[in-house]
Structures are given as structure tokens and as C-alpha cells.
């Protein structure tokens, strides 16, 4: 008799719940007509139940499945971030899909499957689990990027993302293989203990593996110099998908990045510190300087999202518990402000699905003052102005880095925040201080779900900015 392995289904409950709902949505789609609204509600219910069920195990770190799956504050908090961001993405898609004629019911189930992958990624304590999670997330995203099948740009986005993403997965896997070869284990805890007490620290195999890991993760989070795909893919994909991509999956990959580097190989941080510092600084600079010259709003936000990856890398470099909690806080804050900004872009889209140039926003402040105010809140928060969530997030990240003595890095980061104001304010200047060219009138399409998303995003951005205490203390746990 082969003994049955110890299966801890309770700690896996969010993954199970969400997988069941994803399959349910897939099957239900076959039996309903053209109207996919019921799928939306089913998906939202699934996300809600998954988030609630993640609390079933309490907050103490509980390892299960031979130490490869862990439930702790980090993973529970991120499960909530993922559930929120996927729910916002689904709500944004409702009217967008109707207008663009995307009648694909599988869309919702793929988003749910992608969320499953993100939860796996945030909860894994083993290199193989991490790779599994990354693949679930990536394959779902390749499909989502190409969901507008008849659109050339969407096809380009999907193909570009797929080819480069598959290549990056190869780098990642080879890096993991080398780390395994050098340490003899795939468990992050065991890797840490092997490296704590041995002479393997300078083994070239290990260092080569770490470099390949940086390349692989760098691609997946779109950090410079592995960011080339991001603007094209973000612009080509359907806008709700772009919003989704820039928040949830990115946060999930950062979670795995953090787990490997800070929990797995902190003992050789002398070697990877410098690489990550350089990557963080050039990511911030290229993202912000690239955004300055963009005229298309979606591309502008794509570059801004690259620069935010740079800020989040600073939290990773800090390596302390404050760094971890600031990373978590920033993910949540970024989810709200990014989804808010993308939601505004979606409701202002032209009828043919083209999104707007910055100059089309001229005069919006007088024609549709509420929309303009919301957009200003999101942009100022992305820039990092108090009293919005973006400021608190950046403040915590930078203070974590200062605590560890990364003064130069923080100075460059703050400088970059200042640069970013140039392009965020440029949009606001167009909205309030310029006359529209010609007689083109922006017609916002105000669907109830989109308005709900904007409402939630405004609330989240302001709430986290003024009363960050409860969330911060939760992340500190």
C-alpha cells in the first residue's frame, strides 16, 4: 500500500473554489444564448467566495503539500488584491464587450483561470509551484491579449506576447534548474538554509541561475531592459484586458519574485542587489521618460506602468519586513488607481474602439466635470501626490529602502516621481486649460458597471490615501 500524501484542501480552498467556478462558467456559457450577463454575476460570485475562503486558515504561515504551498498574510492579502482586480476587470468588460461585439463567454472563465494561477503564484513556496503558477497566468494572458480576433493590433499583441513570453519562461525555468542544481532542492526554505551555511554561495552555477531568474522575472513584470513588449501588447489588447494585465498578473509575478529573492536567496543578496538596483533605476527612467513623448493615452499608461514596476522593485530591494508590507500596500493602491484610469479611458473610447489621444481630452473638464475630476484624482495618485493612495504607497516603499541605507536609490526614485508629474499633469492641463480642436465631441458611454468601477476606484484611492492605517497594520502582520 502506498501511503496517501497529506492533502490539505482547506488551505487550497480559494484555488479550488475559483477553478470550480471557472469550469462552471465555461459549461454554462454553452447553454445560454447571446446574453452573457449571468456569466458576469457567476464570475463575481466566484471571486468573492474565493477571497472569503482564503481566510479559512488564519494568518499564521501554514505549509502544506510537502512544504510547497504556504498560506500566510502575504498570500491572503494578495488573494484579496487579485480578487478585487479581477472583479474590476470583469465589471469593466461588460459594456466594453457589448460595444466591441466580443461575444465570447470563455473570456470570463479565462480571467478566472488566470486568477487561479495568480493565487497559486502568491502562495507557492517551491520553485516548481512558482513555475506552474507563472504558466497558468501567462497562457491565460496570451489568449486574453488576442481576444479581439478580427483586430490586427490585437493579433499582433497576442503573437508578440506569446513568442517573447514563451522565451522568457524558458529563461526562468533554466534559472530555476541551475539554482536547483547548485543547492539540491526546490523548496525556498531549504534553499535558504543550504545557502546560509555553505560554501556554495559563490558557485558560478548558482550565480548564473540567479541572473537567469532576474531576466525571466524582469520580462514578466516588464522591467527595463526587458520591457519592449509591454507598450505594443498593452495598446493592442482590449482595454479591460490591458487594465487587468497591468495590475493582477504583475502583482502575482512580483509576489513570486519577492518570495524567491527575499525568502529563498537572501544570503547571496550581495550579488543580486546591484543588478536589481540598476534594473530598478533604469526601469523608472525609461518608463517615465518614455511616457513623456506618448500621445496615445493607453500607451502613456503602459509606460507609466513600466515605471511603477521600477518603484515596486525598490520595495523588493529593501528586503525587510517594511519592504514586504509596502509592496503589498502598493499593489492594492496601484490596483485602484490604475483600474480607475483605465475605466475612464474605456468610457471615453470612440465608437470604433480606438482609444483617445491626449489632445482629445481638451475641454473635458467643462463638458463632463465629474469624469475629469475622477481622472485627475487617478492621475495625481499615480504620480504620488498626497492625500491619495499613490503617495502613501510610495512613501512606505521609499522609507523601507531608506531604512536599509539605499539613499541614492531613493533619491533617484523621488526624482522620477517628479518627472512623472510632467505627463500626468499634461493630461490634466489638456482637460482644464485647452480648447478642443474642431467640433469633435467626446461621448462618454456610461454603463452602470463601468460607473461602479470608477466609484470603487475613487473610493479606494482616497480611502487608502487618508486612512491607510488598517490596511498597513494588516500587511504588517
Amino acid at each position: 500500500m502506498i501511503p496517501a500524501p497529506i492533502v490539505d484542501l482547506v488551505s487550497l480552498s480559494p484555488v479550488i473554489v475559483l477553478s470550480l467556478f471557472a469550469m462552471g462558467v465555461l459549461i454554462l456559457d454553452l447553454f445560454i444564448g447571446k446574453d452573457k450577463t449571468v456569466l458576469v454575476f457567476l464570475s463575481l460570485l466566484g471571486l468573492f467566495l474565493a477571497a472569503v475562503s482564503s481566510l479559512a486558515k488564519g494568518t499564521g504561515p501554514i505549509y502544506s503539500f510537502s512544504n510547497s504551498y504556504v498560506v500566510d498574510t502575504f498570500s491572503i492579502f494578495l488573494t484579496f488584491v487579485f480578487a478585487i482586480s479581477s472583479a474590476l476587470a470583469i465589471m469593466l468588460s461588460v459594456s466594453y464587450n457589448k460595444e466591441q461585439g466580443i461575444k465570447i463567454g470563455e473570456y470570463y472563465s479565462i480571467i478566472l483561470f488566470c486568477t487561479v494561477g495568480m493565487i497559486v503564484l502568491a502562495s507557492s513556496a517551491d520553485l516548481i509551484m512558482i513555475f506552474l503558477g507563472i504558466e497558468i497566468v501567462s497562457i491565460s494572458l496570451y489568449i486574453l491579449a488576442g481576444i479581439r480576433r478580427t483586430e490586427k493590433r490585437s493579433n499582433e499583441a497576442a503573437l508578440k506576447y506569446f513568442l517573447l513570453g514563451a522565451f522568457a519562461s524558458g529563461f526562468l525555468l533554466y534559472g530555476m534548474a541551475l539554482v536547483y542544481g547548485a543547492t539540491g532542492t526546490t523548496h525556498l526554505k531549504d534553499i535558504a538554509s543550504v545557502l546560509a551555511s555553505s560554501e556554495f554561495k559563490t558557485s558560478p552555477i548558482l550565480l548564473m541561475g540567479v541572473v537567469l531568474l532576474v531576466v525571466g522575472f524582469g520580462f514578466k513584470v516588464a522591467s527595463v531592459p526587458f520591457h519592449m513588449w509591454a507598450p505594443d501588447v498593452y495598446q493592442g489588447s482590449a482595454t479591460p484586458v490591458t487594465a487587468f494585465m497591468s495590475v493582477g498578473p504583475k502583482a502575482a509575478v512580483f509576489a513570486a519574485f519577492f518570495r524567491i529573492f527575499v525568502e529563498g536567496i537572501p544570503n547571496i543578496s550581495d550579488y543580486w542587489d546591484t543588478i536589481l538596483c540598476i534594473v530598478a533605476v533604469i526601469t523608472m527612467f525609461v518608463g517615465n521618460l518614455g511616457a513623456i513623448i506618448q500621445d496615445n493615452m493607453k500607451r502613456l499608461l503602459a509606460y507609466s506602468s513600466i515605471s511603477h514596476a521600477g518603484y515596486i522593485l525598490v520595495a523588493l530591494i529593501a528586503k525587510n519586513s517594511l519592504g514586504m508590507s509596502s509592496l503589498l500596500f502598493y499593489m492594492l493602491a496601484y490596483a485602484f488607481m490604475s483600474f480607475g484610469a483605465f475605466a475612464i479611458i474605456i468610457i471615453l473610447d470612440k465608437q470604433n474602439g480606438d482609444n483617445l489621444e491626449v489632445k482629445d481630452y481638451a475641454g473635458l473638464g467643462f463638458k463632463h466635470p465629474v469624469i475629469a475630476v475622477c481622472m485627475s484624482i487617478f492621475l495625481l495618485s499615480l504620480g504620488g501626490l498626497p492625500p491619495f493612495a499613490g503617495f502613501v504607497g510610495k512613501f512606505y516603499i521609499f522609507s523601507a529602502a531608506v531604512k536599509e541605507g539605499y539613499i541614492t536609490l531613493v533619491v533617484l526614485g523621488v526624482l522620477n516621481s517628479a518627472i512623472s508629474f510632467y505627463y500626468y499633469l499634461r493630461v490634466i492641463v489638456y482637460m482644464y486649460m485647452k480648447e478642443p480642436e474642431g467640433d469633435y465631441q467626446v461621448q462618454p458611454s456610461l454603463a452602470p458597471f463601468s460607473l461602479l468601477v470608477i466609484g470603487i476606484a475613487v473610493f479606494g484611492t482616497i480611502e487608502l490615501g487618508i486612512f491607510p492605517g488598517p490596511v498597513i497594520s494588516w500587511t504588517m502582520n
Partner: protein
Amino acid sequence: MEQYIGASLMLLFATGIAGGMVLMTSLLGPKKSFADKDEPFECGESQIVSPHQRFSVKFYLVAVLFILFDIEAVFLFPWAILFKKLGMFGFIEMFLFLLILGVGLLYVWKKGGLDWE
């Protein structure tokens, strides 16, 4: 040295049979040469054709489905061999796996992936 005798004999037989076959056919076989025969062999495809030939996408769909359900069989074989030793746990796990695949089959079926026309 003695333990290598078997292996050497095996090697000798293998090369002997393979080489012998080639030798015998080239000595005994009929030799007729014509244009088609002199072309390099490529699974029934002509060497020089227009590259703009189109394959029906249905072939790819069938191939993908075949791989999916073929993998299922790959997992079923070791499970069947160890069925008794795995006990109830293995039974339940495998049926969950089959259930998930069943969902996939239902999906493919309803979507018309199994219809050739």
C-alpha cells in the same frame, strides 16, 4: 572483461543484421532507375511544389484534441497498474482528473469541435 561478452555479442549481431540487410539488398535486389525514384524521400510529398498549399485548420484541431486525450491515457496507465496499492485516495484523485477532462470534452463537443463538416 567477461561481463562485456554479452554486450559485444549483442553489438555484433545488431551491426551484422543491419549491415547485412543493406548489403544483401544492394547485391540481390533488382536495380531499376527512374526519375521519381531518384528523388530524396519525404513522406509522400513531392520535392518541388508551391509553398502556398493550404492545410485545413481542422487537422490542427484534431491534432490538439488528440494530444489532450492522449495525455489522459498516459496518466491512466500507471494508475491502472498501481490501482490496488493506491487505494481509495488514488481512485478519488483519478476520478477528479477524469471529471475535469470530461468538462473539457463536453466543452469541445458542444462547441462543435468534433464535427468535421
